[in-house]
């Protein structure tokens, strides 16, 4: 096992946030962590990436306890893509992507091997070639998030953690980002742990899903095992319709609300149609 998590518990102000969380992740796998607001997803990711200190339980990455790594060692093969994209600062796209090499540089900022090739291929992959000399402050949120992913690519990690990376993106950017990560996962046997809000994206792009509720693991399994109406309703308090994706055969949800009257809508729709044909 690449990552082993055992008996993770943590509380803030005597409020338990995570209770006895245990799971493991194989090398090259993509694990999606889903759950409603306040279920402890972000805290779990902070513990896994070593930003938050462990209080009970343990995390082993590649056979070594996480607290045994220094920040710099960890950064050599663990990268994190955060929810909020990079701030609008006066660095160019290329400069920011080069910052991903920081853990490998000596104190003069030099590296043993020339990295121009790598940076160039990343700019290519993320379709940032034309933007490479533009300043971050002049880019849109979606473009900045692409730069952020490019920066994590420059880090050449073995393990990538995503903290709701698509939250502020339009659907075009969401798919672009998830596709690049998926390709990268398959090409380099990258292991991905991703916190996702969007259950449809999670079902499409993750090999396994871990469902969190009130700090506890409710279920772990394939998307088809997890994205079931009764399980979703028990955790989220709303019962969606679950359908099979017509192309990929993966489960996808369609939301339904209580205040929407289906009969009224269908008669309205007929009237509208009549209105158009007249």
């Amino acid at each position, binding site marked *: 096992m690449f990552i082993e998590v055992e008996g993770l518990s943590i509380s803030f102000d005597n409020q338990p946030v995570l209770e006895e969380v245990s799971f493991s992740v194989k090398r090259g796998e993509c694990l999606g962590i889903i759950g409603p607001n306040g279920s402890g997803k972000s805290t779990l990711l902070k513990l896994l990436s070593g930003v938050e200190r462990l209080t009970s339980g343990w995390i082993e990455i590649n056979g070594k306890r996480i607290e045994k790594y220094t920040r710099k060692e960890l950064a050599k093969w663990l990268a*994190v893509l955060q929810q909020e994209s990079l701030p609008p600062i006066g660095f160019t796209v290329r400069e920011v992507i080069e910052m991903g090499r920081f853990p490998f540089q000596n104190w003069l900022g030099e590296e043993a091997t020339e990295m121009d090739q790598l940076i160039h291929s990343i700019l290519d992959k993320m379709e940032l070639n034309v933007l490479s000399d533009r300043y971050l402050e002049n880019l849109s949120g979606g473009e900045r998030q692409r730069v952020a992913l490019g920066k994590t690519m420059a880090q050449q990690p073995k393990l990538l953690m995503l903290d709701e990376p698509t939250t502020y993106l339009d659907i075009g950017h969401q798919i672009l980002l998830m596709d690049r990560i998926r390709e990268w996962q398959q090409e380099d046997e990258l292991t991905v742990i991703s916190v996702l809000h969007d259950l449809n994206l999670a079902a499409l792009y993750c090999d396994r899903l871990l469902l969190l509720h009130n700090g506890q693991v409710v279920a772990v399994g394939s998307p088809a095992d997890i994205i079931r109406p009764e399980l979703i309703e028990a955790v989220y308090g709303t019962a969606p319709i679950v359908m099979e994706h017509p192309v990929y055969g993966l489960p996808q949800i369609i939301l339904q609300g209580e205040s929407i009257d289906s009969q009224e809508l269908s008669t309205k729709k007929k009237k509208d149609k009549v209105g158009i044909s007249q």
Partner: protein
Amino acid sequence: MKRRLALWGGAGFVLLLLSVIISLSLGSANLPISHVWGIILHQLPFLDGVIDTNWATSSEQIILKVRLPRVFLAILVGACLSLAGAGFQGVLRNPLADPYTLGVASGSAVGAAFLILFGYHTILFGIWTIPLVAFVTGLISLLVVLRLANVQGKYKLETIILSGVVVSAFLGAIVSFMVSMSDQVVNEIVFWLMGSLALRGWSFTFVLMPYLAIGLVILLSYGRTLNLFALGERQAAHLGVNIKRTRLVVLIVSTLITAAAVSIVGTIGFVGLVVPHLVRLMVGPDYRLLLPLTVIFGAIYVLWADTIARTLLSPTEIPLGVVTAVLGAPFFAYLLRRNKQMSGGN
């Protein structure tokens, strides 16, 4: 990057050299620039005898004993305060931070003023006593300011400055109280408090030198780290930066060089604010360029501020702190306004 550093650094160095020569020739006794060149070059051992000594000995005395040490001190003080400002701004990710707005300068002034007013100038460590004590008191006041500004582990831009103002006002009152209790010549002390480079011999220049050297070496090595800080502290942590250690080292070193400057010339405001921003306008936010260039342009800035201070109303001398405040406060207002617009736009 290296080419740009060489280019700007070279230009800055030439500008600094010219400023030194011009500043040396200005004063109550105006000396021709050719004499200034001559007197300086004459000091270089291998040029001895090459240059005609066609100037009066009094001119040589004025240049070498009065103006030159002062010019050097101005350069060092400007370098120290600007570098400290750049360090504070980088590590706190706060464009309005500088030794003055953070209360570090006032904190250092309390320690220094205490020793000066009650005659303990050289107790224990000789000439090094005042800078060391000023460092300790400066550090304490910085800790108090940061403690006050800490809201749930986050430092908001305005709260830091607000805390800085509060602590500075309190410390200013303590200094005033000490002045009123002391039986020394009040005029001299008040002048020191307002910041002045007048009548400081070479010895003070030598005191300042090692502080600047240490600060420069350490802070320059943090250039790339401060660049990562600009992305956000968590981003920096994920790239392998030890956030706590970086914060600690940069804050302590910046306080150290501030304290050294303040203990010798008093509180000179806004230098650490104005200079890094001017350099940022020229070369952008890259701390690998910003830190070294801030040192050079800070030196030029204070050199000219001091030249104005001693020549504008000659023979009356304006305190240097007054000159830098008159130049710096409007700039601070401008930054505050621009910052407000930016955060309002988000």
